[in-house]
């Protein structure tokens, strides 16, 4: 019946309403805002090539963190607000790799190799916690994230690392707040096969790495285990009656998300050029959560496409908002404010629309 109704309305409105339904109001608004900022930048004769180059870098460096939202959404645990668990594992990997003074790709992959087992164990323990609080995973995850960041502050201070470049100059004990990766693996991915077209620098390695993980993720979604994970998320009773192990699949979802977060922060750090310790990962989850939601993911359904589109929209917006508004408003910085409003507003919006069943 709905079909005939749609046919009767004119084709143009039909097209727009379909596009609107597919795309969703929030995405439409944000896309509009991004375009508006670009137009504004053009009018003010700003250098678009720099804006685009920066955006590409931001997309690549945040993409994997956003991707790490998918497994928990798939298995029904919800948005992984406990992302700092994985981030910490990644930071441990990065710090160890730096401590051994491994350089270039060796340093990057060593960081990942160390981070993986740490993330798996941490993810497993985190999954055990979440299992006990079914139905409130997102709330509890947020606090697990906060707690682990605080607890790790002590670890960073007491870690038995003697590399003078990494520890506080005075006192000789405790890692610095920010460690520079200049001498180890800063920008190894960004600079890998990088080239310029029309003045826009393409961080080829970074985008390739993100793309590779996206492909792997979408293949996983189509595998036996991936389908089981999605089934567990969308209808646990159906999953159970089809002989799937609901508990096991949920645990794997959490572990996978934690592992991706660990890889994500290493990618982020190499691109940024610094490893940020102590309270830096406190709010790591929020931009990632906001991105995937802007991409159109809901608590019931999230695809790799949602993660990609969300990353592109959210991070392009953040990247260009600062310089454009600074030029337009002569120095006022609404970038940080815009980030807060958009990311927290988006999370709020998505959560109020949840639990329709």
């Amino acid at each position, binding site marked *: 019946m709905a079909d005939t109704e749609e046919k009767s309305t004119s084709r143009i409105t039909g097209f727009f309403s379909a596009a609107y339904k597919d795309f969703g109001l929030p995405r439409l608004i944000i896309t509009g805002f991004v375009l508006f900022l670009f137009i504004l930048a053009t009018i003010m004769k700003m250098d678009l090539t720099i804006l685009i180059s920066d955006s590409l870098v931001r997309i690549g460096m945040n993409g994997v963190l956003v991707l790490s939202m998918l497994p928990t959404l798939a298995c029904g645990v919800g948005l992984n607000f406990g992302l700092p668990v994985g981030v910490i594992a990644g930071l441990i990997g990065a710090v160890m790799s730096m401590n051994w003074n491994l350089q270039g790709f060796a340093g990057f992959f060593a960081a990942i190799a160390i981070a993986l087992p740490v993330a798996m164990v941490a993810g497993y323990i985190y999954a055990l916690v979440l299992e006990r609080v079914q139905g409130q995973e997102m709330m509890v995850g947020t606090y697990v994230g906060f707690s682990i960041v605080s607890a790790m502050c002590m670890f960073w201070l007491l870690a038995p690392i003697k590399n003078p470049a990494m520890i506080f100059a005075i006192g000789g004990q405790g890692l610095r707040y920010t460690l520079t990766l200049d001498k180890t693996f800063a920008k190894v991915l960004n600079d890998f096969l990088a080239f310029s077209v029309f003045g826009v620098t393409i961080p080829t390695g970074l985008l390739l790495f993100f793309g590779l993980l996206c492909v792997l993720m979408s293949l996983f979604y189509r*595998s036996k285990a991936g389908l089981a994970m999605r089934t567990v998320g969308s209808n646990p009773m159906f999953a*159970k*009656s*089809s*002989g799937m192990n609901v508990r096991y699949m949920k645990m794997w979802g959490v572990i996978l998300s934690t592992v991706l977060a660990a890889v994500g922060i290493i990618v982020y750090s190499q691109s940024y050029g610094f490893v940020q310790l102590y309270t830096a990962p406190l709010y790591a989850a929020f931009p990632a959560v906001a991105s995937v939601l802007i991409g159109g993911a809901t608590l019931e359904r999230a695809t790799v496409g949602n993660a990609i589109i969300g990353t592109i929209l959210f991070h392009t917006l953040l990247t260009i908002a600062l310089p454009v508004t600074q030029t337009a408003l002569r120095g006022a910085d609404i970038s940080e404010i815009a980030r807060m409003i958009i990311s927290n507003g988006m999370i709020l919006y998505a959560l109020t629309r949840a639990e329709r069943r």
Partner: protein
Amino acid sequence: MAITEGNVLELEGISKSFFGTQVLKDVNLSVRPGEIHALVGENGAGKTTLMNILFGMQVIFDTGGFEGRIILDGVPTDISSPREAMTYGIGMVHQEFMLIPGFTVAENIKLNREPTLPNLASKIFGRRLETVDEEAMRADSRAALDKLAISIDELALVAGLPVGHMQFVEIAREIDKRSVKLLVFDEPTAVLTESEAQMLLDAMKRLASEGIAILFITHRLDEVMEVADNITILRDGEVVAMMSKAEAEVEKIAELMVGRKVERIELPERAKEPSDRDIVLRIENLSVNMPGERVRNFSLNVRRGEILGIGGLAGHGKVGIANGVMGLYPSTGKVYANEKELRLNDPKSALEAGMAFVSEDRRGVGLLLDESIEMNIALTAMQVQEKFLRPGAIPSLRLADEAAIREHALQVIKDLDIRCNGPEQLVRRLSGGNQQKICLGRAFTMQPEVMWVSEPTRGIDVGAKQLVLDLLVDFNRKHGMTIIMTSSELGELRKVCDRIVIVYRGQIAGVLPPDASDVDFGLMMAGKGAARREVG
């Protein structure tokens, strides 16, 4: 019809339909003070709807109201909410208890009607701050409980009481409302042990002798015979008989309650008839803890190649059997498929033993509503039997073979005549009948030896019902699939089954051939002749 003097309640020409389906047709009923009037009927006969009308439940108005009149004490009355029904002196003893576990018996009985004493604060801020008069509350509660001749401590917490006692607390609350003129008992003995049930029946008689009219809704014909003065029998929304106790016989009631024409069409012949020498599934002492549908010590042999029906009234456990064997609810006992013991409480073990299950909860358990038709059909077979997977080194990371899934889905859509836009359509958008066919298609994809089908025709329209039944017969005859079908609709069981098991209180009441008389079915479903067990 003239208004008869002296009736507490008179229902006159009540008709009601839900979305075009008539569930009540011109129902008349009258109750005098001090009369116990039994209202009997199968599930779906319309008893609940009738009570919803009497209590002015919102669901009635939301679905377009009803026709006919409610006359209380000779005055036609509009009852528009349960609260209003209460002010007219109509009380309800619920099937599910509406008690607060952390409160005492007395507090529950007097809930929201507590006797109070003024104090300083209440003089300033109003009546809501008056002190609760604990003494009066105790005394009132005691009086109400004594009226029922039950020795419950009125200061005990409800949480620790046995189920039977909670029922009495509920009744005590109703009779404590002094204005109560008519009490409705909705299946009050369903959860009681035999001695508790007897106490309840005695209490009912005592209340009636004090002039309270009682409307007693039940399936249990022996109880009807014991206490009722008059009996009204509902079937398919119509009053098929009204009789006094003197005229009533259990057999007659049972026949009237169940009886409807069963057109048993000739089913296709089989090459080999199922027999007791070839048992495909053996269930021994199965107990299933499924809320509302508990199974207790159920044993049964299923013959290879038969269509076995499981019938019985709601709440007696017929639905629990399939859910227990398939591992969805905690169960104990032994189940052997082809003489190999299954691991209970493990759906995978049941599925691997060659069984498939079509759940009674189609939308909740049976389908992934937001997935495509093809995924719904293929998923279980993929996960359990590794069908539709492309080769790969790591078993759990093998990719889905989308071409094979598509091909199979198209075949199923054609074979089962599923009306849809194509295999990619989301299941949520389909009609109930087509959704049910997808559930059947999914089970069928497993190529099971034994297929459990629960309530296959629930919530689908009449035409689709016949199609679903035809499909089941077809699976059975063409593929030799053993089918165990659970249904609340006795008529459809009698249409297609070879044998019908009737479940009563979680146990087998008996096994009947489909052409057994209505009386036999009615009696068995009502627990007559079946041994009743004291439950702890």
